[in-house]
């Protein structure tokens, strides 16, 4: 089954880290991606730019509304995702717990609606 691991992180954390810590952080994510690939669970992944770069669009009553910034103005923002293919939810939760984001933010495990 496919799951999207949605990484919710506090964006201000990154800027507060030293260059060494940032390097170590990136390396941890690289290792995590490698482990997913070696286990044949990896389908795709991306890191997102900070949510300040977001624009939200909504069409209501024939009017298009365009706003600066993310959809929800919360401390934790979506910072990236992993799309994985694993046998079941237990396995997806195990992979989520290994994701570095689980120790500095929250990882949401979302099953993908498979199109027939």
């Amino acid at each position, binding site marked *: 089954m496919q799951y999207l691991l949605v990484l919710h992180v506090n964006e201000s954390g990154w800027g507060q880290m030293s260059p060494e810590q940032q390097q170590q952080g990136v*390396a*941890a994510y690289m290792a995590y991606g490698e*482990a997913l690939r*070696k*286990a044949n669970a990896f389908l795709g992944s991306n890191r997102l730019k900070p949510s300040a770069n977001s624009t939200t669009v909504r069409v209501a009553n024939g009017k298009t509304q365009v706003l600066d910034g993310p959809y929800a103005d919360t401390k934790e923002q979506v910072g990236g995702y992993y799309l994985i293919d694993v046998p079941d939810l*237990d396995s997806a*939760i195990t992979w989520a717990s*290994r994701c570095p984001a689980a*120790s500095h933010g929250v990882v949401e495990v979302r099953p993908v609606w498979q199109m027939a």
Partner: protein
Amino acid sequence: MSFAEGDDARKTADAVARRSYGKLVAFLAARTRDVAAAEDALAEAFASALVDWPTNGCPKNPEGWLLTVARRKLIDSVRRRQTGEAASTQLQILAEGLEDAAAQAEKDMQIPDQRLALLFACAHPAIEAGIRAPLMLQVVLGLDGETIASAFLVSPAAMRKRLSRAKEKIQQAGIPFSIPEREELPHRLDTVLDAIYAAFAEGWTDASGTDTIRRNLTSEALFLARLVVELLPQEAEALGLLALMLHAEARRPARRNAADEYVPFAEQDPALWNAQMIDEAESVLYRASALGTIGRFQLEAALQSAHVHRRRTGHDNWAEVVQFYDALVALTDSPVVAINRALAIAELHGPQAAADALNEIAADDRLTEYQPYWAARAELLSKTGAHDEARQAYEMAIGLEREPTVRAFLQKRLATLESSTRG
């Protein structure tokens, strides 16, 4: 009710819950085999206690009070669910049985301890192996489903479903609430001990001990092991398991340094170990050895004992350690044991011999996602000079680790390796 009285009542209720929960569930469920109904009735009784005790004062025999109320609730619930002739007969039998037993318990001022029978029911071979440990934690200790789900890395909804399915199985399949016969006991006890160890292992994965759910799990598992030892004092493997867990738990304070970094066993300061717990482990293991039947848990405890002895005295005993591992491999055929054996071989015969030993099990599919395998492989290969392979193994170990402190520790090792190959 004054605040203080309410507080007192809650404290008493908490203490009784901790001490007697399993006893009360066992007592209520033994006749009906309906664990879920017994738990519901007991939960209602605890809720009543929190209303009643602050006003009327805590009863002299809180266990007996809870049993009386829970018994009434249980009979009420059966009455609500069933009607008709057959039901009323069954109800009468149930009510009379409970009534007699409860009267006896009240007279003796103590409830007969049927927790061991309950443990055997929870770890019955007909119950799916993976749910036995969670089931014990819930039914015998009263841990809630959410806590258990987090500890076992399962969604709370799924955990609740599996737990209730297991309880239904106990009732529907007629799993007995009894202590197995002599000839069956060793095998059946193994499944109980395995489940207790599984609970302990889940609690142990948290190196920091900051995660209270996990830390509590190790103490709950120790509680269960002590319970089994108390009720079956002549079973060597139960003693072995207790000794093993005490040894592991004794080292908790040394697993982190002042900077909150992970400290591997070889670098721990023995002075930080809990000496009292180690003494208890040693005497428990000694009791086990006097019973004259060797087994997996005793061997593992003996290994811990040998490691502790070496670190405390500085006296090299790797040959002895490898012998213990040889015996364990022969007994369990477990890849996990084989990994630890390889690490011991490294100390005795050098990293190449160890890497060769590890290669013998490399084809095992179960190891692809097993973090300790990659960590061991990385350590050994970085010493044999196979640096590229070592780097890859470190990457896997880092990617599979869920504890941030251990991850940081491995990243440090990898950085050391990379700077040494560059320089």
